[in-house]
């Protein structure tokens, strides 16, 4: 006996199983990042010195004069470029799904490939940012702001990597399914697309919260 609605939608719910599954998973992810963001708010409001770089540390970093904020140590241009990269990748992944719906497999390959490149690009830029921090001896333990910065961007990065693995699989070996079970393959691309939008959305919140506020 087969499990029903793995591919087709159930008439009364209008969903196939994996689509409901991914929405529920994303709901739990909202709670995870919601808790992380709330913790940031609580730590920041609870400690008047949260944003301020202590004098000695500022001196060591070559900063002089007025009080400096930790967020000034982050690179807004790099993060801005990364925001664009991720937003662009959200568009390309929709295009790859739409190409499949139009039965244009080659175009799917192309758009999915671009999405994968974007994901690599994003991680590359993150790596540059991280190593800049480490070379200045700025670590998670240096201050709670940096702790939050590394934890939040690190967890977000893990989500990107997780998505990336699935994307590469669907682009490469997993795409064989297009021949045998096309409908199911389109569903897979759709569900991973939903996930990818969520990862994008988290970053759109992270960027202003950490870099700008």
């Amino acid at each position: 006996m087969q499990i029903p609605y793995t591919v087709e939608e159930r008439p009364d719910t209008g969903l196939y199983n994996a689509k409901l599954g991914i929405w529920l998973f994303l709901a739990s992810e909202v709670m995870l990042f919601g808790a992380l963001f709330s913790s940031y708010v609580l730590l920041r409001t609870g400690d008047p010195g949260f944003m301020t770089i202590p004098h000695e540390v500022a001196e060591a970093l070559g900063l002089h004069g007025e009080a400096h904020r930790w967020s000034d140590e982050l690179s807004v241009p790099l993060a801005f470029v990364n925001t664009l990269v991720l937003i662009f990748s959200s568009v390309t992944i929709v295009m790859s799904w739409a190409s499949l719906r139009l039965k244009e497999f080659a175009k799917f390959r192309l758009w999915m490939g671009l999405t994968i490149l974007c994901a690599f690009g994003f991680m590359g830029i993150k790596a540059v940012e991280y190593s800049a921090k480490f070379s200045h001896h700025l670590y998670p333990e240096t201050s709670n702001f940096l702790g939050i910065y590394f934890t939040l961007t690190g967890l977000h990065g893990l989500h990107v990597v997780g998505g990336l693995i699935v994307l590469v699989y669907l682009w490469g070996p997993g795409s064989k399914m297009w021949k045998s079970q096309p409908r199911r393959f389109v569903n897979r691309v759709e569900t991973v697309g939903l996930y990818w939008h969520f990862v994008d959305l988290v970053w759109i919140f992270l960027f202003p919260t950490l870099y700008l506020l």
Partner: protein
Amino acid sequence: MSVLEKPPPEAEEHTGHHHHDPFWRRYIFSQDHKVIGLQYALTAMFFLLFGFFLMILMRWQLAWPGRPIPLIAGLLGEANAPGGIMLPEFYNQLGAMHGTIMVFLGVVPLLVGAFGNYVVPLQIGAPDMAFPKLNMASYWCYLPGGLVMFSSFFVPGGAANSGWTSYPPLSTIATQGQTWWLIGMVLLITSSLLGSVNFIVTIFQLRAKGLTFMKLPFFVHAQLVTSFLLLLAFPPLEAAGIFQLLDRVLNTSFFSPSGLVVAGEVVDKVGGGSPLLWQHLFWFLAHPEVYVLILPAMGIVAEVIANNTRKPLWGYKSMVYASIFLGFMSFIVWAHHMFLTGMGTTISSFFQTTTMIISVPSVVILSALLISLWGGSIRFNTPMLFALAFLPMFGIGGLTGLPLGLAPTDIHLHDTYYVIGHFHYVVAPGTIFAIFAGIYYWFPKITGRKLSEGLGKLHFWPSFIFINGIFGPMFIQGLAGVSRRLWDGGQQYAHAQPVLEWNVFMSMSAFGLLIAQLPFIVNLFWSIRKGQKVDSNPWQATTLEWAAAPSPPIGHGNFHEVPVVHHGPYEYSAPGAPNGYLPQTAPGKEG
């Protein structure tokens, strides 16, 4: 064990290629919800027993502080109990791990992983869970999580010892066992995440034809709400766990305030963190978690009561709405565990109010179950005895919770044995009794044989008496002001002296409770081989799981024919029905 037997020939047609699967695919890395349910059941029962043994050690120490532990003293190790005498540090490990193991490795996996997995797909007429691979993965995150917790007893410094609540800063500076605890928790959280997604999708998507929401057995509703709680409440604890792990491993200061001094030395951290942040994140999970511990238990009790009163559940609809409302409310009551943190009267008032509101749906469910008994010709079999005992026991647990939800009284009762008494009435004679009811009730479905009634009653009555002997006096001690988590049970406190003698009484009851479990264990092993053989519906029940073969075949597909539902879940005493009851699949009214 008849579940391990080859399925009957006609079942093999339905299971297709599955009966060719090698042993390890069928029973170890199985994707069948029934096998996974049994894996959960066996593992969780082992942990339940283990958690129980830890508690027995504690009770020895509480009754006779400083007296060498008999028989097994040598096994505990010189670092924990030199000469058999328990060290305070070891008592703390036992306490923290008893709580953790009972909640996260024993009761929840039994209620959700075992009963949920085995019964829900059957009760909704589904061939399996929606995602069998995820189901397997869920068990295979749970087991390593449990093993990590278990092995942490053997690392230097021993297991986690900062209570099951793991409050920082104590937990931040605690020995290595705490790191293991955190890693174990992350695995368990992952497991429950996979499970809850799976349950919700299964219940929404795989219901049999005609099985609308208001025809679902109450047990399924309870599991559905529970899954939402697990899905949405655990992630904040995961966030908290990650923060605490980083505080311990990477020396961050999320939960460490500035200027923390330990053993006369300033801790080498930048500080500025907030220990209260942990408490908020922890209780954001841990309050909904108590409903995870109680809702499926209520679900089991509802099934057993409807079946044995031979009447429809009174107020089924209000029970369903009450459980949904309860689920929503459980997310906004968490800070009633934090009245003593000085969070301010405004916030306290808010959480007192929500706490009083959330007690209403529990009362609705309990009252509906009580009224359901009215006028029934009750069958007093073993499952029913446990289900009946659940009602007053959960009632005591629930009512004694009200003073804890009001700040003025909680200020006095907080962290006393009164609290221990209160929540154990909910989880031990409450939930655990419901679990027993469920085991006696569904055992015939799983194995095709009934558990012995005689041994069952020999299990029930002493358990019922002893368990009250343990937890009843805790209220007396707590009201006298005896604190919880005391290694000597309060011996060094003047105000504890008048109530100290109860410690021996409670511990004797605990040992009695241990002995009272022997008939149950014997019963399990004996009945699997020798128990009375039964057909598919020995209790004359209405719900769908009883339409499946006894000991349903392994491999996707539980029913010979895809069931179609025409009736509500509890059409007992239906006028004109053949044997006085209408199974949900009986032909009849369209729906």
